[in-house]
């Protein structure tokens, strides 16, 4: 169809432009922009990975950040004991998180709504407390790894860029697939989904493992860029920030996480720089406003405009 071809061409152009812009700092060697964009890409990746579980199935995961922490510790610990380059252990971070998710996911997903949320919150906090008591993880000090490798801004940037792009592509394919449809059906009405013959348990578990392992991937790369893994990685505040961004942008969509993450990031940064003492008060107010006024996220605002709707109907 002509309309479809036009949309794909538009999408392709947009992809090329965004890629060029986001890769620009690598070519200019401007470490300042690289650091800024890296943080944005990292946050975006976290939001995209959370979107897989929370956006598509509606299960609000307050323990997402725990997998990010596991990934970071996997990389840092393996680097510390083998003294090899940490990049070698990044796949281990993803696999490790996936295994843990497989283990706890099944029982966790047997509860719904706020019970799931609180249970995941409990697990996240329990993880932090346990790690802080472990001698081989250096208790509350964490594992600094600066002395084990030579930090390189370029590889750090390109690896996070690839992860963000990969997650975006993954979301694209899921959104357009039957699997994605199953997930969204679960979100809309889980009992109905079961009646329709969807194996909700397997479906939910698969996306939970996927979501958690990608969070582990981001955590592993972050430990490399921060040259440090510490209990602060298990921070509830980061988890809430990720959830807030996802809801702000619109869960279960392709562009929602991107719009949400970018807006949140820019707002938080601006507030911090301009209001060093009041920024959290203003931030709290903004969050309250968003939650009351933007029921389904910014992306859905686009749906309201007929012209844009045709363009973005399944973004």
């Amino acid at each position, binding site marked *: 169809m002509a309309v479809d071809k036009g949309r794909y061409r538009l999408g392709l152009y947009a992809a090329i432009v965004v890629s060029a812009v986001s890769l620009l700092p690598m070519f200019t060697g401007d470490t300042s922009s690289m650091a800024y964009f890296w943080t944005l890409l990292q946050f975006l990746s976290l939001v995209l990975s959370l979107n897989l579980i929370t956006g598509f199935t509606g299960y*609000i995961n307050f323990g997402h950040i725990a997998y990010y922490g596991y990934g970071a510790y996997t990389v840092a610990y393996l680097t510390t004991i083998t003294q090899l380059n940490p990049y070698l252990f990044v796949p281990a971070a993803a696999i490790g998180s996936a295994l843990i998710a497989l283990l706890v996911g099944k029982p966790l997903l047997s509860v719904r709504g*706020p019970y799931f949320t*609180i249970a995941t919150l409990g697990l996240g906090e329990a993880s932090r*407390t346990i790690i*802080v*008591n472990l001698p081989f993880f250096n208790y509350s000090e964490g594992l600094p790894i600066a002395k084990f490798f030579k930090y390189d801004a370029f590889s750090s940037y390109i690896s996070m860029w690839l992860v963000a792009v990969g997650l975006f592509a993954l979301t694209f394919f899921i959104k357009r697939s039957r699997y994605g449809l199953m997930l969204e059906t679960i979100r809309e009405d889980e009992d109905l989904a079961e009646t329709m013959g969807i194996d909700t348990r397997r479906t939910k578990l698969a996306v939970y493992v996927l979501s958690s392992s990608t969070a582990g991937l981001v955590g592993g790369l972050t430990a490399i860029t921060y040259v440090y893994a510490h209990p602060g990685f298990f921070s509830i505040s980061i988890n809430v920030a990720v959830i807030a961004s996802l809801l702000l942008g619109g869960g279960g969509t392709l562009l929602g996480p991107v719009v949400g993450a970018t807006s949140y990031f820019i707002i938080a940064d601006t507030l911090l720089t301009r209001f060093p003492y009041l920024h*959290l008060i203003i931030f709290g107010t903004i969050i309250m406003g968003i939650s009351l006024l933007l029921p389904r996220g910014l992306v859905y605002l686009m749906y309201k405009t007929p012209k844009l709707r045709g363009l973005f109907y399944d973004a």
Partner: protein
Amino acid sequence: MVTSADIILQTLVNGFLMGAVYGVAAIGLSLVWGVLGLVNLSHGALLISAAYITFILYAGLGTPPLISAPLAFLIGAAAGFFFYKLFGRRLTSTDPSYSLLFFFGLSLFLTNVILNLLGPDVRGIPWLIEATALGPVSVSLSRLVSFGLVATSFITLYLFITKTYHGKAIRAVVANRLGAVTAGIDVQWIFTISTSIGFGITFFSGSLVALVNPFTPTSGDGYLMYAFATVVLGGVGNIVGAFLAGILLGVVESLVGVLFTQGVSPAVAFITLVLVILFRYGRR
């Protein structure tokens, strides 16, 4: 490992007294969650706001905590009433995820207003920091007084929830909202008074917290997790359950801390929380 009987007895008493405070502190959270279905993430911030109000009354006007606590209840009840009028309808009709977000924003807002107005310094009320000996056990006077207040308030609540019309109506709404409507209960009104009482009790407990512990503007988060554990353990919306669960949690935490090490006791609390949720609410 220390196992003398005196020490164990002391541990149990400590846990019991602390747990009673956890229990009462959780009732407000349980009520609002059970009746309205709202998970109030700003619960800790509300507790601390009340602690600061009590502190200001004490430091500024010399108000003894025995008066501040009931006063805090009234302030909280009023706050809850207006909160429902302003936001209640909106919050109960949107997606649960959005109400979570809202309360998180509220928590940030309250905590930082206090921080900016009153500073980050640690505050405490140096009233009755004395110990009395009950046999081999040493008990803090301030904790005894707070327990007295806890017991009084709990008995009052218990009578309210079992003997009065509104109390029974609240229990009905928690049990089955649709059924309650069918029975002719004005659910909107029940929502209003539940929020009011919930905030009231929360502020009352915050006042008690100020009586027994030091605090800073950000201390609220530390109470939040225990509050959740207590609510879930006791059954969401179950006031008596919350209170008993609080005591249980307090005693267990105390025992773990003394028999093993206090460093891991939060993990014990959280894992208990998760296991209880999975066993009680999990679907096979």
